């Protein structure tokens, strides 16, 4: 993998053993550069907003309301919102609720494997401030310390109508070009990584899962 921005140097990949280190890329991710012509960028943003491939990760309770969202009652397919089973092809990451520390590790890996521009939507109150589990020893209280969240849909549970409203809100944000979590993540990669490593004690994966 080639890297363009070498100013900060390659990633350390401290968590890997020396023989494993050769197997993984240590390149830094590069921020997304918009198209030079503004109209093109606007058009592409409009298309992006209307073709949302969702990667659903049922990390918690919130995932249970994704089922009604995709079926006859609410039918989010109408808005160009389709489930996609693999991170590589998805553009929206739906995180279904609270994340335990163990899940957070998987969330990070799944998120990094997605190809940019990508957007993160977190469901429920728990990702915002811990919700019901604010005092639990195993659930994360503030999601945006670890991955960049573009949209929170709060509630316990968020109803499908709210999810639908959230989808429309996300579309609006993408159209206006305000959903830039992907770039925030890359530009502040070291800060995010430090936060992640502080709570994930057995960090045995590459610093950026390409």
């Amino acid at each position, binding site marked *: 993998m080639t890297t363009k921005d070498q100013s900060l140097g390659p990633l350390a990949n401290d968590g890997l053993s020396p023989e494993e280190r050769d197997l993984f890329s240590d390149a830094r991710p590069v921020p997304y550069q918009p198209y030079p012509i503004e109209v093109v960028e606007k058009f592409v943003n409009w298309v992006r907003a209307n073709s949302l491939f969702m*990667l659903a*990760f049922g990390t918690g*309770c919130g995932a*249970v309301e994704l*089922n009604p969202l995709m079926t006859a009652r609410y039918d989010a397919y109408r808005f160009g919102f389709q489930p996609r089973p693999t991170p590589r092809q998805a553009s929206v990451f739906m995180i279904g609720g609270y994340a335990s520390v*163990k899940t957070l590790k998987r969330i990070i890996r799944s998120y990094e494997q997605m190809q940019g521009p990508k957007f993160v939507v977190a469901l429920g109150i728990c990702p915002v401030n811990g919700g019901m589990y604010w*005092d639990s*020893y195993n659930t994360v209280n503030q999601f945006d310390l670890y991955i960049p969240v573009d949209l929170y849909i709060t509630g316990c549970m968020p109803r499908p109508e709210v999810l639908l409203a959230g989808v429309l809100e996300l579309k609006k944000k993408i159209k206006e070009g305000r959903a830039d979590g992907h770039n925030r993540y890359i530009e502040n990669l070291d800060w995010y990584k430090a936060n992640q490593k502080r709570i994930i004690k057995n960090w045995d994966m590459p610093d950026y899962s390409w």
Partner: protein
Amino acid sequence: MIYAKRRKRMSTQEHNAPIDLESGKYVKIWQGPQHPGITGNMALELVLNGDEVVDCKTHVGYLHRGFEKLMERRTFIQNFPIVCRIAVPEPTFNEYLYAAAVEELAGIESPQRAQWLRTLNLELMRLASYLMWLGGIGASFGQATIYQWTVTHRDYVLDLFEEMTGARVYHMYIVPGGVRAGLPEGFEDRARAVLDGVERLLNEIEKVLFKNVVFKARAKGLGIISKEMVDPYGIVGPNARAAGFTRDLRRDEPYLVYDQLDFDVVTGTESDAYARAKVRHQEMREGIRMMRQILEQMPTDGPFQAKMPNVLHWEVPAGETYVKAECTRGEYGYYLVTDGSQYLRRVHVRGPSYTHAIAVMEKLAVGTNIADIAGLMVSLHTYPPEIER
């Protein structure tokens, strides 16, 4: 037939030989936690020889919130809104069991009408949960249409919940001492309409899914639980009933008003994925029959809440108890220990998935085709949140 025999012989051979991953003969793959073919948020670590699974390890804990710890530092009434969060698709059973256990320890008797309302609530929940499960088994065998139909109909059941309790998923309806509210006007008729709709859907599913040659070819003979396996593995509920055991807590140890209702305990004989699906399908019909009786016989007035002590200073006397109920997966239980203070000493939630998803799954997966793992997993009906709480 010959093929099946040969496969069996092969799998026993493989099982006896130690699995050497370095030999290049095996592939190790992970199903989950981010995988559409897994129920909830858990992972299977599979070792494959060709298409056949030779070793399966389950990994749980992705949903661990430390509920039992959190409940130890909340007062009795503070616990009531959080218990339902333990199992997402079936919160009501948690509410009922917690309420029943606290009532037993505190010596509170809930009024008769509350018991009927609780039974109705539990049976509706069973219906909703089974509908989602039927969709799951359809989807895991590639029948997305069934999934769409059942999840839509589940939504109509959730509408009833919304009328009854004010919430779709987490109802927080069954409080210690009774229930939170009575039924709104005209609820019975709307409930009957929904039940009729679900019954029509079940007839259609009978035609589209259960009589389908492909579904039969896939599900018959998949994941057979032998009779000898049931007790050592602690298999309960529909999984045990499909193996021919007539064990149903609703009939064996009646709680609430189940002794006043007329219903049959459905059993199967084949004990494969198909039989398990069939048992659940039939149980939904029994559940609908039960709910029609409830709607008919339920007292329409009277108190729905017992006189409660001031919940802010509620001290439950020291003691311990174990209450259980038949949820959609089998015996669901709450074990409560109190020490006379305002807080619980210990609570343990016994979920049937605990054994179904770990010990049973690891046993049944060996020798199965990799394509059937998702179907097998769904056919056992497991919810990870109740394993790790």
